[in-house]
């Protein structure tokens, strides 16, 4: 039996995640992922006005802000049988689009970047060579000059000399699993600092129509509230101005940096490190018409990386089970019918997770009894498999630029690259949506809300495609109040524990077989886990209470 290693806290994510691995001769033989926080928000929803649900569930997560708000409002609109007007549909896309742009940028640089980039190595870079290298990947790289790179080095050097590295302290600098030359490290580190500012601009884009970020406050069942901003040409201008800044950063920093990293990490990608379950699911999102017939991201699934046979989704096949989760009912349940009553069984006496029993606050979602990965890679793979021309062109173009085959997608590197590709895909569409909005308003349609009332009884679901992957909310209304609420969120799919059949969840599966350079430094583990962009607070709200009471459980 190998050595058990525990990584807790997994940092640079939202929320509280614990990973345990069984390691033998530096290779991971088995893995368990556990969410260590439960908040019980669906319990809190019960009995409330359905129109309040959106603002409440938005507090699932401040990183994936907006998306739960939207999914909840969509679920209500399904239950209320109301269709928001065109202006509202477009503005929601504009807010969601802004979210994609800044969130993916922030993820790559601030949450994920330090898994690929060695900050200390950047100090020994030759700034002149770094300028040449950056220009080899982009004609006009972002904030690229010898003076700027020297200034970045000086700033970092000051931290290092003082021995006060702050957030960069005690990390894995010098680990042999870092593959980039010093110049590449310097380029990406300098963009790490730039991205701190740029992501703020993206947040402002959201705030223009949303009121603020995080946690915008403009969606209402049937439409949106920010009608004054929508009808104000200068607000649209403010939005477009910022969009240009974001797009410029994506094109001259984010994409070239990912391609640059891929050049040095390609062997990992080619050998499939971090591939995981190789099943991919997307609900589809960004409606391009008011009836959701055409979506920016298509809906569908791909099983066992079989690109030739994409699967059409049947919503009835979505289930969740809790045999390895700290909840009572073990059997798979559809979200409309799900129950979630806590049954906490603690860790082993030696402080390890009880891997054979219950070990996480996360439930195990399955599609047709199979674990699926969701997120950027799933969206790109599903689109590619369905022959979606634009997605195919983008993916093929990137592969061509790196000289790598399509199989490289099924890896940690592929997941990270897919995120960059789709950021460009969304970014390129947004201006068209603004024009569509202007045309519609000019034609005399200023409606932003469709009148509706809470039905006495009703059932509805909102399914969409936020940055981290397929998201579904299910609501049941009785006596004008919320009788039942369930959410299966992207990180629940990805962070899923084992199921009844013993099948591992995507995080767990993606770690098995990974070689660690140093067993006491979990760099390769966090690199793969971060490539999913984990968001734990989102993932642990799966509750329904047909049984109302959450009892206080005595811990043995």
């Amino acid at each position, binding site marked *: 039996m190998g050595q058990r290693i*525990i*990584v*807790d806290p997994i*940092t*640079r*994510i*939202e*929320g*509280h995640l614990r990973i345990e691995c069984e390691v033998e001769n530096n290779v991971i033989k088995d893995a368990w992922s556990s969410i*260590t*926080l*439960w*908040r*019980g928000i669906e319990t*809190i929803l019960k009995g*409330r*006005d359905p*129109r309040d649900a959106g*603002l409440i569930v938005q*507090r699932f*997560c*401040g*990183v994936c*802000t907006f998306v739960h708000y939207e999914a909840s409002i969509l679920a209500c609109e399904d239950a209320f049988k109301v269709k928001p007007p065109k202006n509202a549909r477009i503005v929601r896309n504009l807010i969601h689009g802004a979210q994609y742009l800044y969130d993916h940028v922030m993820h790559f640089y601030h*949450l994920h970047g*330090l898994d690929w980039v060695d900050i200390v190595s950047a100090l020994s870079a030759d700034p002149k060579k770094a300028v040449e290298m950056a220009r080899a990947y982009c004609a006009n790289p972002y904030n690229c000059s010898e003076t700027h790179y020297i*200034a970045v080095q000086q*700033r970092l050097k000051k931290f290092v000399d*003082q021995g*006060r590295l702050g*957030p960069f*302290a*005690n*990390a894995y600098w010098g680990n042999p699993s870092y593959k980039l030359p010093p110049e590449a490290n310097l380029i990406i580190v300098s963009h790490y600092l730039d991205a701190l500012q740029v992501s*703020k601009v993206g947040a*402002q884009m959201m705030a*223009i129509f*949303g*009121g*603020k970020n995080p*946690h915008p*406050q*403009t969606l209402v069942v049937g*439409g*949106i*509230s*920010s*009608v*004054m*901003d929508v*009808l104000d040409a200068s607000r649209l201008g403010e939005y477009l101005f910022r969009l240009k800044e974001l797009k410029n950063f994506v094109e001259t920093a984010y994409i070239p940096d990912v391609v640059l990293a891929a050049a040095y990490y390609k062997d990992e990608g080619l050998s499939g490190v971090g591939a995981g379950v190789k099943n991919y699911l997307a609900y589809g999102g960004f409606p391009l018409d008011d009836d959701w017939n055409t979506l920016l991201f298509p809906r569908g699934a791909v099983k066992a990386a079989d690109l030739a046979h994409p699967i059409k989704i049947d919503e009835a096949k979505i289930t969740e089970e809790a045999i390895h989760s700290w909840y009572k009912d073990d059997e798979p349940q559809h979200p409309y019918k799900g129950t979630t009553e*806590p049954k906490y069984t603690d*860790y082993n006496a030696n*402080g390890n997770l009880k891997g054979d029993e219950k070990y996480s*606050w996360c439930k195990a979602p399955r599609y047709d009894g199979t674990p699926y990965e969701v997120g950027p890679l799933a969206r790109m793979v599903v689109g590619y498999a369905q022959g979606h021309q634009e997605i195919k062109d983008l993916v093929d173009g990137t592969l061509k630029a790196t000289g790598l085959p399509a199989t490289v997608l099924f890896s940690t590197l592929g997941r990270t690259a897919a995120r960059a590709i789709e950021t460009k895909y969304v970014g390129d569409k947004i201006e068209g949506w603004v024009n569509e909005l202007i045309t519609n308003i000019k034609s005399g349609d*200023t409606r*932003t*809300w469709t009148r509706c009332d809470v039905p006495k009884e009703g059932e509805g679901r909102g399914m969409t495609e936020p940055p981290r992957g397929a998201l579904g909310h299910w609501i049941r209304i009785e006596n004008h109040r919320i009788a039942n609420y369930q959410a299966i969120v992207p990180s629940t799919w990805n962070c899923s524990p084992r199921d009844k059949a013993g099948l591992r969840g995507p995080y767990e599966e993606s770690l098995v077989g990974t070689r660690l350079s140093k067993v006491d430094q*979990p760099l390769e583990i966090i690199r793969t886990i971060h490539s999913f962009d984990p968001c734990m607070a989102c993932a642990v709200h799966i509750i329904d209470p047909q049984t109302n009471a959450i009892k206080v*459980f005595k811990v043995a």
Partner: protein
Amino acid sequence: MAKKKSSGCNRTVSEQYHKLMEQCKVHMETMDRELPAAREDLHELLESRGVSRRDFLKWTSVMTAALMLPPMFKPMVAKAAENFSRVPVIWLHFAECTGCSEAFLRTYYPNVDDILLDTISLEYHETLMAAAGNQAEACLEKAIADFPGKYVCVIEGAIPTGLNGQYLRLGPKGKTSIEIAKEVTSKAMATICIGSCSAFGNIQAAKPNPTDAKSIEDAIGVSTINIAGCPPNPVNFVGTILHLLMFGAAPALDGQGRPLWAYGKRIHDFCERRPHYDAGEYVDEWGDEGAQKGWCLYKVGCKGPYTYANCSKVRFNAGVSWPIMAGHGCIGCTEPAFWDTMAPLEQPIADKPIGLGGVEAEVDGIGAALLGATVIGVGVHAGMTALKSHGQPKKTDEETPSHNEH
């Protein structure tokens, strides 16, 4: 006669301020000696971001006034700003959504606050730190050992106290948030609750509070400075740190532990839509004529009349907007238990029961209830006692009158 009286009064005020200045000087000298060296030179950084010396001085004037201090304190505010990056900060995440950290990262003022936040010396912050697992835990232990009594503990998130705290376990040893909060706050210079979760429990503590989530103060009994909001405006955090640097004490707080300089005024009183309220012009439903014209949102549920915060003045995201500007009512997110007391969020409270005296009558009643009736008079002059007196036992939930049972 009257003249004499007022000059006597002025003398007393002036004496008080001079006394306060002495305290401030003594404290800042101590801080200068004891804090670790600055990681970055503020003035270099300001220059590189295009903020001139003149802009900086203007900012100190504004910040001095915002902190309710007379102009003689401007040099001290400037000095505190220079020392900002020297305060070690340990930032903990408990039951929360990371929205407060996000807000903190996304502040963007064309002025000094933003740059100060960029220089903050985060010794531990799980969302940003490069180290994970054992190495992360070592960072936390090291920061506590290196800077006992000198670091500021910032807490984002409530503490789930149910199940002996085991709804949240953290770190390689699987400690509960109760254990970690006790360890870290006990050696902190001050504990700042960022956001309504750590300040009041917030969403996870909404009825029926399945995990028995509590504010930091209620869960472990320490005094906290509460930067309320869901998420709060990061600007309010900056002023509070500056005040700590200057006086070693919390700024004047209200009965809910919120700094009065930021939370002393009611949204409704500084709302851009207020003239329409006074004129009786209301939005009756989303997207109607009133909505297009920017009328008052009271009838679609705005809780601005019951909410104390400076959102209407500072707005969010570089002042781009704020919820009321986006045509949605305030939901009262800086007030304790707002998910329960302010619900339904999109209907006026006065509708249930129909308030005889109209909104203002309701306002007085609810405002008093929310403020917990007793605004503890902790002035800036009170020194460390400000922190201590705030920790006195509070009313329990049962005792607080609720206006809005489901």
